[in-house]
């Protein structure tokens, strides 16, 4: 079997040797069970831990016992433990430490907490209305806050992006205008490794093992929270069991540090999956009102997007300096739209705090804009592909917000997806059965490359091997595999001599961690620089060794070919000459021309005319990939994102009812299984302009976003039912059909196109 193309660490994964944060224990570790508020908003009147102590708890600790500052990724508004007031159902109110996890859970039930339930603001749109219960008395006073006392009620942040002529006047003078409002519920990232951390806080150092994707930034967050950088914080390298945006916050690490210091022993917190769902950082639920104008030639004249997002009880899980979701500004970016306005408000509410989920903000606006575009196309009696095509933005044209995109491959991906659809053979009505209606739908998404900077290192060892030091964990995205491929290609070194290792965060310069699909772009360039450094040094060593068999006597080091044995010798010689030396490589893409990548997705569905059941048959993804370093890994990112998009489209709904997350465990929150997945067709649209010498583009977040609108559009194509809220359940389709929509693939839209202020249609009870 060919291990040469295998993923880094693959054999460790299949044999269970790959180690995650939860796999570590230290002698004398105390296990923590958390007491969490059952109320969305309550005054915590008293906490009595005496029974728990009598039953064997090592400690029962409250927020007042600790009296510590709040923490956060940007806004530091998250209490380590609630002090006096609980702001969401699931908030940490007290911590119980015991010798075992079982005992901690058992005695936690004996802690008596007296609450005084208070009126709560549990829906974002209500929370923003003056007079609704305040989530925070003075949210502007938190470090990192971007609002002032004069800004709106219960506001985390607001933003307006606009360009071109005034949207209102352009809409007023457009031939036709269309408007609708769309809902996307909160969703959990759905990684299968719940948050876990183990901390040993000693006076001389703090050791941390945590499921966190950005160790360098975690350390910065902890230093900011501790308000001190005198004690070294060692974030130990561990594999991360899935991230999808959810593992970039300190989460329970500050509490673990506080408890470890207080008790003088290591402390471990392992969230249950129920705690994951109800009390970590799921996505922002959103209501998006979209207005579009069209001229006589069916060209888009104006787009107005007004989105209200629920940020939950704390803003501290968003890393963006504006405390916004950075993909919101890309609403409609695939198209040329002369007048654009995007308004976003993120509200505080008495619900679980919200964070990032794969391509944060993108799905909320893309579902809205791509659904409305489809409704408009049907209203104008245009083919949805053609309507999109005549409005696409092309390379050379400025972006809607004035961006000078390096290129825009919208047409290429749309054409590729349409081509793939023509090769799909939908089941005939006879095959499917008379009750089934077939339909197809298309949607597009584009994402800006959020590249940053990276530092990596190469270390020859005295054993004649090469260690590639990278500052980021591999949370499944394949970053360490990409690093290995780049070095092997650059140096021509055999795989068996190369090891990829994650440097403990303090050893390399600041790294942004795994996120925003950026690692391949940044790290590949840094690795090429490091390889050059190594080659320069190889010159002399190589002359000594290479001359023995008469090669390389010119001293040229550009493309020297070594055998495995020779590589081993030169590496060993390098290591002996300069023990422990790291060949560093850095890359910084922050000042580069902005790059965007495009993805077009097409879904084909069968809809049962009687019951509303929806079967997704095929999912076609045409992705703008430039050049690919690791073929299998790239395909896996696309297929994985597409199925995550399928789950978010069809079943995932972290419904919050009266302030409480309704899904208390996995299985109540549904994730797609292998039985739910359709046939996938992936078209990689290669070439074009990527970043760096390897001409790469990001992929991790590209293929999950357009799936939901593509399926929604396919359902409308099949039976005319337009569903304007996710997930696209059979019940919603059934009730939309009941509202007088005749089935059939050529049925008119279920809602009128031109309905100012229309309610979201198609939603059953």
């Amino acid at each position: 079997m060919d291990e040469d193309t295998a993923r880094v660490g693959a054999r460790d994964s299949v044999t269970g040797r790959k180690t995650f944060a939860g796999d570590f224990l230290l002698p004398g570790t105390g296990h923590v069970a958390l007491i969490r508020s059952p109320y969305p908003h309550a005054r915590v009147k008293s906490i009595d831990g005496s029974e728990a102590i009598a039953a064997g708890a090592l400690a029962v600790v409250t927020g007042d016992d600790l009296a510590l500052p709040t923490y956060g990724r940007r806004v530091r508004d998250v209490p380590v433990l609630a002090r006096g007031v609980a702001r969401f159902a699931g908030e940490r109110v007290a911590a119980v430490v015991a010798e075992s996890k079982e005992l901690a859970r058992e005695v936690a039930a004996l802690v008596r907490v007296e609450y005084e339930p208070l009126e709560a603001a549990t829906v974002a749109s209500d929370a923003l209305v003056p007079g609704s219960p305040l989530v925070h008395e003075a949210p502007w006073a938190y470090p990192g806050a971007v609002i002032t006392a004069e800004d709106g009620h219960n506001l985390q942040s607001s933003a307006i992006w606009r360009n071109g002529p005034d949207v209102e006047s352009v809409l007023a003078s457009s031939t036709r205008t269309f408007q609708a409002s769309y809902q996307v519920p909160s969703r959990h990232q759905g990684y299968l490794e719940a948050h876990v951390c183990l901390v040993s806080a000693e006076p001389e150092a703090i050791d941390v093992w945590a499921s966190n994707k950005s160790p360098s930034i975690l350390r910065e967050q902890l230093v900011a929270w501790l308000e001190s950088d005198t004690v070294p914080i060692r974030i130990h390298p561990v594999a991360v069991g899935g991230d999808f945006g959810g593992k970039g916050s300190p989460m329970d690490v500050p509490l673990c540090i506080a408890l470890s210091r207080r008790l003088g022993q290591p402390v471990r917190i392992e969230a249950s999956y129920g705690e994951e769902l109800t009390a970590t950082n799921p996505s922002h639920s959103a209501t998006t009102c979209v207005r579009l104008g069209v001229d006589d030639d069916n060209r888009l004249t104006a787009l107005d997007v007004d989105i209200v997002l629920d940020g939950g009880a704390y803003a501290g899980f968003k890393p963006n300096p504006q405390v916004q979701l950075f993909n919101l500004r890309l609403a409609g970016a695939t198209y040329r739209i002369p007048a654009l306005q995007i308004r976003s408000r993120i509200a505080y509410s008495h619900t679980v705090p919200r964070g990032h989920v794969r391509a944060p903000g993108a799905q909320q606006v893309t579902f809205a804009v791509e659904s409305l575009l489809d409704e408009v196309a049907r209203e104008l009696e245009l083919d949805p592909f053609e309507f999109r095509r005549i409005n696409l933005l092309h390379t050379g044209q400025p972006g809607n917000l004035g961006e000078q995109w390096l290129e825009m491959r919208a047409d290429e991906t749309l054409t590729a997806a349409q081509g793939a659809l023509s090769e799909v053979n939908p089941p005939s009505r006879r095959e499917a059965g008379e009750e089934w209606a077939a339909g197809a739908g298309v949607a597009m998404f584009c994402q800006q490359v959020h590249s940053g900077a990276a530092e990596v290192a190469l270390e020859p060892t005295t054993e004649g091997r090469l260690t590639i030091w990278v500052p980021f964990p591999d949370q499944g995205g394949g970053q360490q595999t990409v690093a290995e491929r780049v070095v092997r290609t650059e140096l021509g070194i055999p795989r068996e001599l190369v090891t990829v290792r994650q440097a403990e965060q303090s050893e390399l310069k600041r790294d942004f961690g795994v996120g925003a699909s950026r690692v391949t772009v940044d790290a590949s360039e840094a690795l090429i620089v490091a390889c050059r450094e190594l080659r320069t040094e190889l010159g002399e060593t190589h002359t000594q060794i290479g001359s023995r068999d008469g090669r390389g006597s010119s001293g040229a080091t550009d493309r020297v070919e070594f055998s495995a044995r020779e590589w081993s010798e030169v590496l060993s010689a390098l290591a002996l000459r300069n023990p422990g030396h790291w060949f560093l490589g850095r890359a910084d893409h922050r000042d580069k021309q902005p790059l965007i990548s495009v993805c077009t997705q097409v879904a084909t569905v069968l809809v049962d005319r009687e019951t509303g059941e929806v079967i997704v048959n095929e999912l076609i993804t045409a992705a703008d990939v430039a050049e690919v370093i690791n073929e299998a890994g790239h395909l896996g990112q696309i297929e994985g994102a597409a199925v995550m998009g399928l789950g978010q489209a069809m079943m995932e709904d972290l419904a919050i009812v009266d302030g409480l997350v309704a899904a208390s465990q996995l299985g109540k929150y549904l994730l797609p299984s292998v039985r739910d997945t359709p046939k996938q067709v992936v078209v990689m649209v290669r070439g074009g302009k990527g970043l760096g010498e390897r001409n790469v583009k990001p992929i991790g977040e590209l293929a999950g976003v357009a799936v939901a609108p593509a399926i929604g559009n396919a359902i409308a194509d099949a039976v005319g039912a337009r569903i304007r809220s996710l997930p696209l359940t059979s019940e919603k389709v059934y009730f939309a059909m009941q509202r007088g929509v005749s089935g059939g693939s050529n049925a008119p839209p279920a809602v009128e196109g031109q309905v100012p202020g229309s309610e979201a249609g198609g939603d059953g009870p």
Partner: protein
Amino acid sequence: MTGRPGTALTVNGEDVQCARPEGQFLTEFLRFELGLTGTKLGCAVGVCGICTVLLDGQPMSSCLVPMITMECRHVWTIEGLAALAGSDRSTGEEACRGLIASQRISAVFDAFISCDAIQCGICTPGQVISAIAFAGELTDADDASIRYRMGGSLCRCTGYGSILRAIRQISENGSG
């Protein structure tokens, strides 16, 4: 269970004792008392499948198995199966229904690696054990039955494409 100091079982072919079975589940016994951390803890309600082990030869979510039910039972974890893969032994104890040949285990490992049916890796041991458990029935298995058999193991990363390709490779090679 009265009069007994604990629960006696075998794990990876060796006799082990669980001193305090009450209130404990198999996943945590394996992870914390035996240090066999290849068995992962996920949802703890039998949905995700990342804690799958072979229990008397059948794939089972270990998070659902109370230790008080484990007397005289036989468990194989990913560590034990990995050790078998490199040997010519099998899990063929009398009490263990279904003999699992070391070649079958190796074939599953190799297929998952060569098809890149791995991303973050947290679900991989459970997926691999599910595949090993029914690899014997795989010859000419159709897509629907593969999906049915593997449906108890969730994966959030891969979208299942590469996992299905791995299973088909095992099926086509007749490695079962």
